[in-house]
């Protein structure tokens, strides 16, 4: 971290002249908000925006960060996670930056947060109305696999031609008996556009369907945002006679004993054990159990 930025963080919000609330200047925020509004109006549609340089490298959540900074208000309570973990490096860095430049309080409790920025997970707690969930997106276009040219994928989106994705599904099913999409499973939003739900595991995909929160997606490197408004249909692509299958775990969480949460593998002294990916949720369960 540069010393100037360190100084800025230490100084706290709105105490240093020349810096706006939540780091970004107002005109930049307005531009992101306009793109987001368009995204909310056309669920699942990729909206280009003027992705700025951020004090994190592109590919480290700069898209999600810009969405968060453009959306955050002083009344918000912030939670930032990386793969479900509040203490992972990416989460800590982003949280520190957002909190220091906006002055909003932070929490690890998904139920108490009003704004949650996430990388690759949806919190284990069911979210509620009024909450905003911001996703960091590495690859924004589900058709990127089909063509590297945005002009081609834009036309396919416009014509609703997702034949290539169905062909991947057919081919995977014929060769392996199931789909090979392990993350970023393509979903049809509001019976219209097909979008990538970001690299969340398949476990989280059905949890976007008719969800009460507003989901915003930001891809900094690819300069695109998209959105899923509350209570919107989000349906994974699957053949009628081959149901979509989320990951299933045979074990319970090694720490809290939870059955049915999404688990990660943790290595301790060379031994692998399965633990909840949502660390805050897991800790709360253990505290409640005493």
């Amino acid at each position, binding site marked *: 971290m540069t010393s100037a930025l360190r100084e800025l963080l230490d100084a706290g919000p709105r105490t240093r002249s020349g810096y706006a609330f939540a780091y970004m200047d107002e005109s930049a925020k307005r531009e992101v908000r306009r793109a987001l509004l368009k995204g909310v109006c056309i669920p699942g549609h990729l909206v280009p925006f003027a992705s700025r340089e951020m004090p994190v490298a592109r590919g480290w959540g700069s898209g999600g960060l810009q969405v968060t900074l453009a959306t955050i208000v002083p009344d918000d309570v912030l939670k930032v996670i990386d793969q479900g973990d509040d203490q992972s490096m990416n989460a800590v860095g982003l949280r520190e930056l957002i909190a220091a430049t906006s002055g909003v309080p932070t929490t690890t409790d998904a139920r108490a947060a009003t704004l949650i920025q996430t990388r690759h997970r949806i919190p284990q707690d069911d979210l509620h109305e009024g909450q905003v969930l911001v996703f960091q997106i590495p690859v924004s276009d589900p058709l990127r696999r089909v063509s590297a040219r945005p002009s081609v994928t834009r036309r396919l989106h416009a*014509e609703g031609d997702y034949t290539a994705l169905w062909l991947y599904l057919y081919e995977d099913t014929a060769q392996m008996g199931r789909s090979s999409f392990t993350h970023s499973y393509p979903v049809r939003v509001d019976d219209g556009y097909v979008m990538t739900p970001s690299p969340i595991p398949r476990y989280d995909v059905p949890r976007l369907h008719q969800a009460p929160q507003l989901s915003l997606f930001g891809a900094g490197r690819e300069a695109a945002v998209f959105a899923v408004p509350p209570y919107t249909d989000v349906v994974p692509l699957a053949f009628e006679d081959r149901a979509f299958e989320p990951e299933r775990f045979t074990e319970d969480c090694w720490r809290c004993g939870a059955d049915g949460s999404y688990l990660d593998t943790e290595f301790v002294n060379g031994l692998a054990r399965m633990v909840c990916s949502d660390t805050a949720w897991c800790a709360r369960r253990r505290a409640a159990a005493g």
Partner: protein
Amino acid sequence: MSVALRVEDLTVRYGPGCQACAEPTASDSAGALCADCGSVHGCREVGFEVGAGEALGIVGESGSGKSTVLAALNLDQPVSGGRILLDGDEITAAAGSDRRRLRAESLGIVYQTSQQGLDLAISAGGNAASRLLAVGWRSYERVRAEALTHHESVELAGERLDTPVRAFSGGMRQRVQLAKALISRPRLLLLDERTSGLDVSVQARILDLVRRIRRETDVALVIVSHDLAVIRMLAERVLVMQAGRVVEAGLTDQVLGDPQHPYSQLLVSAQLT
């Protein structure tokens, strides 16, 4: 016999066009290149009809416009003038999702090279299935059963349904292309030099296959070929093209047996027997 395909005054021009090249009076032997404005006519005022279950051959030297006509029929090539009607519906200007649906549902094409018509990394079944998926089939079992039926109907072994086309020989790839073209039961089947580059015995078997398809379906067929023997065997009627124009048209036996136009005479006499 009902008319399946009707083509009226089909013209494909590259370039602005001018008074001189718009004049249809230029002699037959004039080239496709306009001396005044430099426009090139891929084809010019080509008109014909093909009935359901009928086969039309198009012959002519390289550059005579055969493939341009075929590309226009397959909606790959925007046309400068004229109309294409399929079962009475005009499809000339179909664009976007209409064009995609027409191509997936009503048209089938077998290209000269399999790379053009197939995704070599995808299995034979997948290549054929893509046309069903494009028109909204969403049952895996039904798609697969249909792909298998057509795979076997072009005399490919069922156990090779899931083999990537890359591993197939030239003759087998032509069969996969045929299966892909026929899987959606199209109204119009376009064949582009389908047997060139194959050895004689493989060629003969594919020709037999096309004859069988003609017996069993009432698909309208347009065949483009250099090979007059192929045309003679498959097509009842034939167009002879030169420099983008149709110079002679008629029953295959008549045109190839007693050619009237000097160019047709040249073409027939140039054939090795």
